[in-house]
């Protein structure tokens, strides 16, 4: 080992000097990164925060020297220790990757080969870089898995990826990254694909390992709150340029740039309530859900002959709740908790058992959901790409509910008004969905829902697929509309911070069961159910410590 491999603390482990990256496209060069200057020292965690399209992932590929064919590098240097990576041939880079610098990816279900055992994928790094035999690598691998907190390492080595949970898989990926004691590790949004509680565990693991080994870490994320929890310094990147960098404390207490301020403000802070708590509990609730259950699964055709047992999965288990007129009821839970299932049952997309009462009328199944019900109960979906028909113009998409539920006269003017109401230009009516951005499409979906002047709008994770800043503006729009029209919302999300800002009451769901329904202000009281308390604890809250 030469001196350069473990530099003295004074020399940063990773230095990026005035580095730029372009992609050659049919429309000319696209400037993905412009004059990036960053440095990470031994033992340090640098957070890189940016939204989608900011170039943060491109930077990771540049560092690892794994760029597509149309990438051009007009200038700059990337130094690992004192080695300029830009000058290294591919062969040499292959010896660096995994050994001197490694990476942890976002989604463990796609970054692990589904047809190889977890052990094989961990051991191969050891065989490759530390010259161990497969036998030795396997044993070492087991030790590593134990080190990352897996309970049965020997068994886990033999498991296939689909036989392990998201959290377990990510631990294996982390173990592989740390396996050869690299100088630097890049973490690319490693908790985005995991649920809240598991994310917290993985984050804690990362912090522990990093403190133990002193590896220089680049932590890439879109989540400022998360980064603030873990990093010492933060760099904010927007459209390929570093907008601001500094210690976490400085950035939060004294942000210099507008964009940084925007990002900080966009992070949902449960301490800042955005609604008034003055929804009087009326005697007549708008909607009552009584012991609604949803089951999935049906017998396959020949099961009677083959005698195979059929599994019925329970999506919702006897859920009962109510919503008052004008109230915002939030539903939180992990994926698989049944929140969307309930939403779909209420709009007739799932068959259910039990009763739903709307304004006193009983709804027992799809047939009871008549035109009047449809007019008053609307739903907005999570993915704006999928919820707008790609072959219909915006005009057609928005005029349809008007024709069904409202006044079909002067559609052009009405559609134009609707677009303005959601802060989109009137001319968007002539466009197709693929010509709009994600945030714009979601606004159209919102406009569509409000076209019939409904009494209840169900929002099914409508901000989860959006960037933080876009999310903030969409939420603002929703609250504005609510004030103007007095519509009740059933707001489904997994973002606890967000729901604490905007909901009057919060319902917590877990694996198909309704755990409890409480007033938003009481969600963090110690009287809460155990699951609720675990959830609250697991969620990172950035600003609190700095205000």
């Amino acid at each position, binding site marked *: 080992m030469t001196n350069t491999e473990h530099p003295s603390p004074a020399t940063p482990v990773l230095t990026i000097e005035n580095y730029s990256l372009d992609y050659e496209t049919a429309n000319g060069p696209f400037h993905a990164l412009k004059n990036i200057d960053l440095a990470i020292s031994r033992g340090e965690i640098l957070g890189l925060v940016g939204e989608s399209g900011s170039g943060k992932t491109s930077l990771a590929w540049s560092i690892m020297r794994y760029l597509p064919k149309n990438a051009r590098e007009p200038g700059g240097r990337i130094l690992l220790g004192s080695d300029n990576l830009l000058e290294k041939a591919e062969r040499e880079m292959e010896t660096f990757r995994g050994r001197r610098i490694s990476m942890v990816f976002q989604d463990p279900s796609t970054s692990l080969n589904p047809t190889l055992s977890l052990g094989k994928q961990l051991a191969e790094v050891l065989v490759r870089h530390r010259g161990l035999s497969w036998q030795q690598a396997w044993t070492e691998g087991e030790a590593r898995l134990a080190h990352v907190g897996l309970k049965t390492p020997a068994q886990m080595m033999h498991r296939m990826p689909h036989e392990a949970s998201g959290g377990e898989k990510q631990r294996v990926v982390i173990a592989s990254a740390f396996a050869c004691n690299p100088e630097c590790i890049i973490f690319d949004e490693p908790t985005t694909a995991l649920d809240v509680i598991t994310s917290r565990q993985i984050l804690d693991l990362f912090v522990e390992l990093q403190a133990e080994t002193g590896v220089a870490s680049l932590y890439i994320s879109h989540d400022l709150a998360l980064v603030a929890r873990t990093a010492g310094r933060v760099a904010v990147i927007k459209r390929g340029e570093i907008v601001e960098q500094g210690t976490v404390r400085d950035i939060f207490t004294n942000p210099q740039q507008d964009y940084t301020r925007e990002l900080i403000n966009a992070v949902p802070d449960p301490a800042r309530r955005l609604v008034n708590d003055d929804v009087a509990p009326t005697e007549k609730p708008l909607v009552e859900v009584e012991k609604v259950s949803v089951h999935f699964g049906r017998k396959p*055709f020949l099961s009677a002959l083959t005698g195979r047992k059929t599994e019925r999965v329970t999506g919702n288990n006897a859920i009962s709740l109510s919503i008052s007129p004008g109230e915002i009821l939030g539903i939180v839970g992990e994926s698989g908790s049944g929140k969307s299932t309930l939403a779909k049952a209420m709009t*007739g997309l799932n068959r259910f058992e039990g009763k739903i009462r709307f304004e006193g009328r009983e709804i027992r199944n799809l047939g009871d959901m008549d035109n009047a019900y449809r007019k008053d109960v609307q739903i907005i*979906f999570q993915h704006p790409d999928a919820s*707008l028909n790609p*072959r*219909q113009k915006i005009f057609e998409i928005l005029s349809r509910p008007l024709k069904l539920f409202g006044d079909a006269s002067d559609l052009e003017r009405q559609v134009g008004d609707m677009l303005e109401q959601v802060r989109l230009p009137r001319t968007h009516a002539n466009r197709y969905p*693929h010509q709009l951005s994600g945030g714009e499409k979601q606004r159209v979906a919102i406009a569509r829902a409000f076209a019939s002047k409904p009494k209840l709008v169900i929002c099914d994770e409508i901000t989860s697929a959006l960037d933080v800043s876009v999310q903030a503006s969409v939420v603002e729009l929703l609250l504005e509309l609510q004030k103007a029209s007095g519509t009740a919302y059933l707001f489904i999300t997994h973002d606890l911070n967000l729901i604490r800002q905007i909901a009057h009451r919060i319902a917590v769901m877990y694996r198909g069961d309704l755990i409890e329904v409480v007033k938003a202000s009481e969600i963090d009281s110690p009287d809460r159910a155990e699951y609720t308390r675990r959830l609250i604890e697991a969620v990172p809250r950035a600003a609190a410590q700095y205000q």
Partner: protein
Amino acid sequence: MIDFTKRLLKTPQGAIGIFLVVFVLLVVVFGPLVAPHDPEKLSPLARYKGPSLTYWLGTDQYGRDIFSRLLIGARATVVMAVLATIVGTLIGALIGTASAFLGGRADELIMRTIDAVMSIPSLLFALLVVNLLGSSTVNALVAVAIAFAPGMARITRSVALSARKQDYVNAAVARGESAGYIIRREMLPNVIAPIIVEMTIRVSFAVMLFATLSFLGLGAQPPAAEWGLMVSEARRYMHLSAGILIWPSVAIAIVAVGFNLLGDGLRDALNPRA
């Protein structure tokens, strides 16, 4: 429309494909008018001639001009193939959509049956049908259409199912739209594109299947100028003049490749996102 054509021409497959297919269609429409000689005219003295100024591609075993015969034969081969594919697609699409719509047990039953039917290779199936109905051009068309129907049913069903799963269909259901509206306005426009792509590619298979049937004596009958038949007849005389064999083969290849490439090109051009 202009936008669409531009996109089609962007890919090499689309450009070459549309060029070839348009060329073929022109031949189909104008071929017989442009033919320099009467394709049926026998000239015993001019047999087995190679390409020349009078006979552009040479003559066949009866002294008929090969070029003119090819032009005539385009109608027999191409038109029949296209028609057969369209009919087969319509039947298949109906079955596939119905199956996707019905769902549940009915869907499973229909699909298992289709799978079973598809275990008879298409050529074999076509042979059986022709055997049943008698050997002629029209019957061959029917045979090919029926042979293609199950495959198209499968594809239609899978496309319909994936369209059904999309949230915009869910949004329509949540609005209380009728089944008719959903199928017509929400699903169909998104289903048609992949079907057209598949159909275009199938035309090339239909051309080959049709030609094979004629080759085996079970499709077009002499003295029709169908290309497959021309190749079959050429076998006996090919050592006297290779052209009799080569030119119809080239014609078949051009049509098959053309539609194949066009299908590939359409696949990209019809994608609304790209």
